[in-house]
C-alpha cells in the first residue's frame, strides 16, 4: 500500500549567495536586474572567469563544540541558518519544541562539501609532508559533514544524511524530506544545500571547456558557458498543520535519469521530460496550471538547448519561464536549494525573476522565455528544474494549497 503524498508546507526558507544574505537580497537583485557575478577574486586562476562569491560576513571560526567542522561550507551554512529575518533557526527551534528533537531530520545537498579546506591541506602537505592539525576529513570533507554540523548546531537527533548528485543534489533533498514526512518518520526536515567555491570545481569545469569568460548568460543566443557561484539555500519542510496552511507548499517532486552520458544531457531532454511529468503527476496538476518555471539553464550550449526541447514537450502551450544563474552563478550542489527558494519567492510574492544577462533569446529554442522581471503577477504554482552530471534530473512544484 503506498501512501498518498500530501502537499507539505515550507515553514521557513533562506538563501545566502553572491547576491547577499537572505531572501530580501534576491528581491533586490531581481528588481535591479544586476548580476552579482564578478571577475574571480578569491582564487588566482590561470584563466579568465567570473564567479559568484559570498561576500557577506561569515563567522571566522566555528564555536565549540562545532570547532572541528570549521570549513567555508559549514560557515556558509550557519550564516544562512542564522539569518535573523528569514528565521530558519527559529522555525526549527519551534518545531523542536512541538515535535521533539528526534522527529526532525536534516538532509543537506552538497557537491563540494569542504573540498576547499582539503585543497589547502594538500597544499600544506606538499610543503611540510603533513596535513595540518586542524584538518579533519570526517568532519570537513566527508559528504555528510555539513549536515552533521547543522544537526549538532540545532541539537537535533533525527535522521541525518547528505545527498550529492552534482547539480541536482539539493533539489533531491526536498524529495527525500517529503518522503520522510509522508512516511511518518519525521515531522519536519531541514533540507536544501550548501556549496563553496574551490579550485576543484573551477579547474574541473574549465577542463570540460564549459566555463564562460565573463558573467554567464543562460538562454542567450551567444551564451558561452557557465559561471560558478557558492552559497546556501535552506528550507524547513513540515507536516501539514492548520496554522501553516498559508505557507507556500511543496506540491510534487519528480526524479529521473537520462541513462545517456556522464556530462552531456540527452539531446532531447528525455530524462528532463520524465522528471517534469513525474512532478506534475505526483501533484495532480496539469501543465497549463503552472505559472512559472525556474529553469536549470546553466548557460552551456548543450544544456540549455536540451532543457528547452524538454520544455516544448511538457508545455506545448508555452509557460512563463526564466533562468536565474545569471544573478548568482551556478551554485552546483546548492543550486536546487537556491532555486527552490526562488520558486518559493515567486509564489509567496507573486513575481517572476527575469533572465539576468539575456540579450537575444536563442531562436533555436522555439520557446518564449521571460527576459524581464515581473512583479505583482499571480503565481499559484511554480516549477523548479535542476539537472546534474550523470543525467540526474529533478523537478519540483511549489504552490498554495488554497487561494
Amino acid at each position: 500500500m503506498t501512501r498518498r503524498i500530501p502537499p507539505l508546507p515550507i515553514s521557513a526558507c533562506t538563501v545566502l549567495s553572491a547576491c547577499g544574505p537572505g531572501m530580501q537580497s534576491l528581491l533586490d537583485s531581481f528588481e535591479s536586474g544586476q548580476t552579482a557575478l564578478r571577475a574571480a577574486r578569491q582564487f588566482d586562476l590561470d584563466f579568465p572567469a567570473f564567479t559568484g562569491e559570498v561576500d557577506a560576513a561569515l563567522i571566522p571560526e566555528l564555536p565549540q563544540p562545532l570547532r572541528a567542522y570549521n570549513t567555508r561550507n559549514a560557515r556558509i551554512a550557519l550564516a544562512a541558518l542564522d539569518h535573523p529575518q528569514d528565521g530558519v533557526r527559529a522555525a526549527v527551534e519551534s518545531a523542536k519544541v512541538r515535535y521533539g528533537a528526534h522527529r526532525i531530520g536534516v538532509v543537506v545537498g552538497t557537491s563540494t562539501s569542504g573540498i576547499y579546506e582539503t585543497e589547502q591541506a594538500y597544499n600544506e602537505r606538499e610543503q611540510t609532508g603533513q596535513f595540518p592539525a586542524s584538518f579533519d576529513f570526517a568532519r570537513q570533507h566527508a559528504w555528510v559533514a555539513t549536515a552533521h554540523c547543522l544537526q549538532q548546531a540545532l541539537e537535533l537527533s533525527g535522521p541525518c544524511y547528505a545527498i550529492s548528485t552534482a547539480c541536482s543534489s539539493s533539489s533531491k533533498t526536498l524529495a527525500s524530506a517529503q518522503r520522510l514526512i509522508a512516511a511518518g518518520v519525521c515531522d519536519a526536515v531541514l533540507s536544501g544545500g550548501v556549496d563553496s567555491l574551490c579550485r576543484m570545481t573551477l579547474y574541473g569545469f574549465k577542463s570540460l571547456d564549459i566555463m564562460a569568460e565573463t558573467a554567464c548568460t543562460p538562454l542567450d543566443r551567444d551564451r558561452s558557458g557557465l559561471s560558478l557561484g557558492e552559497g546556501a539555500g535552506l528550507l524547513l519542510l513540515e507536516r501539514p498543520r492548520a496554522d501553516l496552511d498559508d505557507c507556500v507548499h511543496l506540491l510534487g517532486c519528480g526524479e529521473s535519469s537520462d541513462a545517456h552520458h556522464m556530462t552531456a544531457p540527452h539531446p532531447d531532454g528525455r530524462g528532463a521530460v520524465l522528471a517534469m511529468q513525474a512532478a506534475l503527476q505526483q501533484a495532480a496538476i496539469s501543465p497549463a496550471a503552472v505559472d512559472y518555471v525556474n529553469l536549470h539553464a546553466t548557460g552551456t550550449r548543450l544544456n540549455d538547448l536540451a532543457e528547452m526541447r524538454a520544455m516544448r514537450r511538457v508545455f506545448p502551450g508555452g509557460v512563463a519561464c526564466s533562468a536565474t544563474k545569471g544573478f548568482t552563478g551556478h551554485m552546483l550542489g546548492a543550486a536546487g536549494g537556491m532555486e527552490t527558494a526562488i520558486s518559493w519567492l515567486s509564489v509567496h510574492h507573486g513575481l517572476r525573476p527575469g533572465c539576468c544577462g539575456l540579450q537575444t533569446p536563442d531562436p533555436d529554442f522555439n520557446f518564449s522565455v521571460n527576459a524581464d522581471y515581473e512583479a505583482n503577477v499571480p503565481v499559484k504554482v511554480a516549477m523548479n528544474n535542476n539537472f546534474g552530471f550523470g543525467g540526474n534530473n529533478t523537478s519540483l512544484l511549489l504552490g498554495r494549497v488554497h487561494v
Partner: protein
Amino acid sequence: MSDALSVNATMGVLGAGVCLPDEALASALQLDDCALDIAILPPMVRRRTSLATRIAISAASRACAEGGGDLQMPAIFVSAAGEMQVTDRLCQAIAREALPLSPTQFHNSVHNSASAYWSMATGSMASMQAMSALQDCFAMGLLEAACQLQTQAGRLLLVVYDEPMPADLLPEFDWQACAFALLLGAPSKGLPNVSGPFVVDAGNAGDGPAGLSSRTPAMAGLPLLQALRNPVPGRHRLPVTTGNDGWTIELELP
C-alpha cells in the same frame, strides 16, 4: 528515541549481493561469491571507472541476478567518501599545479558517479539517489529505501559501498573496499522481510560481528548478509551501522 520509524515499513528482500575484492578478508569473514563482476559495463567504461564504482556495480549486479527481473527501477547508492581515490589525485594535481585537470577524472569524481554508470549500463531512467552518512550509510540508505517504497510501490536497489581511503585521510579507520547491495520490494510471506531502521539503546542492538566500528561503512551489511545466507526462521534484531548510535532492523526469516 526507539522506533523512530514505524516498523510497518517492512520490505521484502528479493536479492542480496556483496563485493569484497580482498580474498583473504573475504575468506576470514567466510564470504564467497564476492569478487569483482563488472560484465554489465561496456569495455571502454570498465577501464575508466574507479574501484568504488566497480565494487558498487559488482554488488548491485549480484543482488539483481539473485532477485531476477527488470533492471528499470530506482536505485539508492550510499557511500561515506564516494570517489575518494580520484578526488585524491585531483587534489594532488591542484597542489602541484599539474594543470589542466583531467576532464575524465573530474567528472568521475562526483559522488553520483557509480549511480550514473549503473543507470547508463542498465538503461534505467528511474530516480538515482546518491547519499552519504559516514558510519550510518547502511542505516540511512535503508531509511531512504523504506520511505521510497512507502510512497511509490515497486522494487528498488540499495547499494552501500566505499573504496579504501587514501593514506592519512582517516587514520582512525581501516577501510577495505567493500560493497553490499539489496534488491528490495513489497514484503511477502515467503521472503526474508526487513523492517525500516530504528534506533535502540546500544545495549539492545542485537548481535553483530565484533570490531565493525573501524570497518568500511558498507560492512554494516554483514550481519544481515550472514543471517540471510544461514537462515534461522524467526525474528532477529540486527545492527545496521558501524557507528555507535544504535540503528537497528528487525529481520523476519520464513
